[in-house]
Each structure stands twice: as structure tokens, then as C-alpha cells.
């Protein structure tokens, strides 16, 4: 089934997406305004929360 949602096209770089990641920071940060202040903090919080989405689906697969 082809993906129709553009946010699903993050594999366009042909790089496999790392474990722990659903929507990579590089993809989502391109859609945001330029980040002022502590950009690393914003990235870290995004990645922590994105990893929860990752845990959700893989735990559905593994534990349920």
C-alpha cells in the first residue's frame, strides 16, 4: 500500500530510520520556524516524546 501522507515520506533519504524514532527531528524541524534560544533542548524533548510513539507500536507488536 503506498503511503499518501507526506509525513510518511521521511524515508526519502533512503537511510533506514534509527531504532527509537518514528518521525525524525530532521524532518519535523524543517517544517518549524527557525528555533531561537536552546535548539538542542527543543530537539531533545521532541526526540524523547517521539520515542514514546515508537515504544507504543513496538510494544503492541511484542507484548500484546
Amino acid at each position, binding site marked *: *500500500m503506498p*503511503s*499518501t*501522507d507526506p509525513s*510518511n515520506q*521521511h*524515508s526519502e533519504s533512503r537511510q*533506514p*530510520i*534509527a*531504532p*527509537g*524514532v*518514528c518521525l525524525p527531528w530532521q524532518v519535523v524541524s524543517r517544517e518549524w520556524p527557525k528555533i531561537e534560544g536552546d535548539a538542542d533542548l527543543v530537539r531533545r524533548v521532541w526526540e524523547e516524546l517521539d520515542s*514514546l510513539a*515508537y*515504544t*507504543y*507500536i*513496538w*510494544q*503492541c*507488536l*511484542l*507484548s*500484546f
Partner: protein
Amino acid sequence: MNEAVEQLYQQRLTRYVRAMRREKPDRVPIRPFVAEFTAKYAGYTIQEVTHDYHKAFAAARKCAADFDWDAVVPNMVYVWTGLVKAVGIKYYACPGIEIPPNTPFQYLEPPDDQAHMRPDEYDELIADPTGYLYNVWLPRVTTEVRAQGETTTYRNNLSFVRGSMAMLSYFQAFGDQIARLRQESGTPSALSGILKAPFDIIADKLRGYRGLCMDMFRQPQKVLAACEALTPHLLHIAASGADPQRNLPVGLWMHRGCVPFLSPDQFAKFYWPTLRQIIEGLWARGIQTLFYAEGEWNANLKYIAELPEGSIVYHIDRGDAFEVHRALGGKFCISGGVPNDLLAFGQPDDVKECVKKLIQTIGRDGGYIVDASAIMQDDTRVENVRALTEAARLYGEY
């Protein structure tokens, strides 16, 4: 904190961990994998412990308090069917819903032509396993989630909120459960984290065993590539759930790798290379794996013997325990070996005799943990579990 209870906890944890490191503790530890048995013992229905994890936790705590065990799984009735229904997952028959209330949950494999993953979807899975699971797999295995391109629905949205909140509450409750086991009965948790073999994930949750059998003949390279694509993810999930103290092993629950589901050659080709990579990857991080060899695995012992010394605790189900000990006893701790039909239909004296023999042979030099062969369900007789516990204490002193 009750100091006597904490002392008991430390004593048991030391005993359990030393055995897993193939040392000789003060005595042979007991770590029974009691699943639906806990319901029967604590006075709950199967439905109660399967659908309400608070009751499952309470049943596990009651067993831990009443039996002198060195470690227990905080909840061995591992599939909480409350979450299954919250997400709308279709592949379980749940007690009281699809099957009678006093029947343990069962996994339903769909017919071949409705497999959760179609035979021509390997490339999509391999390219992005996580995306595939969200976009293709989840809509197929649930009643609620809509597929990509379909009109979204209220129920689709609810499924994710209900499911993720349910999962969060369940996993957080494990923390409290582990603390209560420690404080109330001085019982350590037996495991931390979950692992499955890439091949089993494809067989059980994606292509189905039948479909995968066909694929091994028709598109073997795709099967291998899919196993490889899943490997880093399964390693990541296992490592992220592992014990930060590196005392407890990750539970590896295997299914279709053994004879007769796979020939030893098929095992060596399809099942083993990626699983071995994961076990070695965990060991490189200092994490042991509890190798739960459900079924008959003795045909594959030579491969398992190649793993780094101490990297696994080998759990025996149907394989000949003494043959396992000869092949692996020099490298790994061994657990299990008390047959489940003996625990279900046998007499306490026979159970005691069996435990005695296991301790005096494969447990002679340490590195052995007493347990049943397979997970104990509600067919296990209480008096036989008592006999197992008593015999382990009676004959298990070093």
C-alpha cells in the same frame, strides 16, 4: 522499610543472580513462571487476572508471599486483554468475550489469505519497519484503526489515546508492583524487558506461520532481509527495558524456532543468525538473556553453545534436561525441567523425586534454577507447586 524483609530480598536476589552467573549460591534458587496458576491459587477467575491487571498483580503478590520463592515475574499473565480491547486488537480470543471466562487467552492466527502482512509487502516492511507497523499492520490487526488513505474516524482517534494511555498506566504499574513485591514479601523480580526473535515476529504477528513456510521456499532472501531489518529494533526495545543494575535478564520468548516447526537447517539459515546478533548485542551491553526454549530445542543445542559464555540463562521445556546440561552446562546457567504434565496430573511425591533428581544432577555444581518446563497455567495442581518448592529447599542446599 522492614529490615528483615529487605534482608530476605537481598539474600534471594544474591542467590538468584549468583546462579544465573553459573556460580554456587547458598542453595538452588526457585523462580517459577506461574501464569494463570496465580489466579487459581489466589481465588480469582482467569478472566479477572487477564482483563484486570490489578488483580493479576495481587494474585502474583499473594503467591510470592505464601511460597518461599527467590524470584517471580511481576505478572506472568503477560497479555493484558483490557489493553487488547482498548486498542481493538483482533488476534486474541479473550476470556469471557470470545471464549469462556475461565479459559486462558489464546492467539488466533488468521486464514492464509488474510495474513496481517501480505506476501508482496516485504520490501515495504524492510524499508521502514516502524512506518509499516503503523500504516499497514495496525489498521489490519485492529477493529478501530483506519488505514492510510481511508477517511479517519472518531474511533480511530480514540484507539490511539485509549491504547497509549492504557499502556502507560500498565507499564508504570509494574514499577509499583516490583516495589511492593520487594517490601511486602522480600521477593525480587525475575526479569526485566522483552525480546522476541525476528523470525518469530514475522511468523506470529506478520505473515503467519503458514505464510512464512511458503515464503521460506518462494522468497527466502526476502525473509532473511526482513529478519535483518527487524533486528536493530528488537535489540533496541530489549535493551531499553533491561535492568539498569544488570542483574536481571531480558525475557526471550521463542515460539517457532524449534523442531518440528523448523528443521535444524532452516533454524540455522533463517532463525538463528539475527537472533544470535541480538543476544550478542545485549551481552555486549552487559545484559543477559533468559532463553525460554519452549518446545523441543535439543536439535539446535550446538548453535546455542556458540553464544558467549554466560550470555544466556537456558530454560528447558521439552528437551531432555540431562542432554541440555551436557551440551550447555559448562557455559550457561540452566533453569526449568520439571514437566508440566507431572505438575498437572502427577502426585506430589513424584514431583519431589523429579526436583531432587534435577538438583542432584544438573544442579550439582551450581548454575541451576528450579522451575517447571513451561509457564504454569491453571491446570497445575497447588499441592504439586508446594511439593516443588519444598523439594527445592530440602535438596537444594550446597
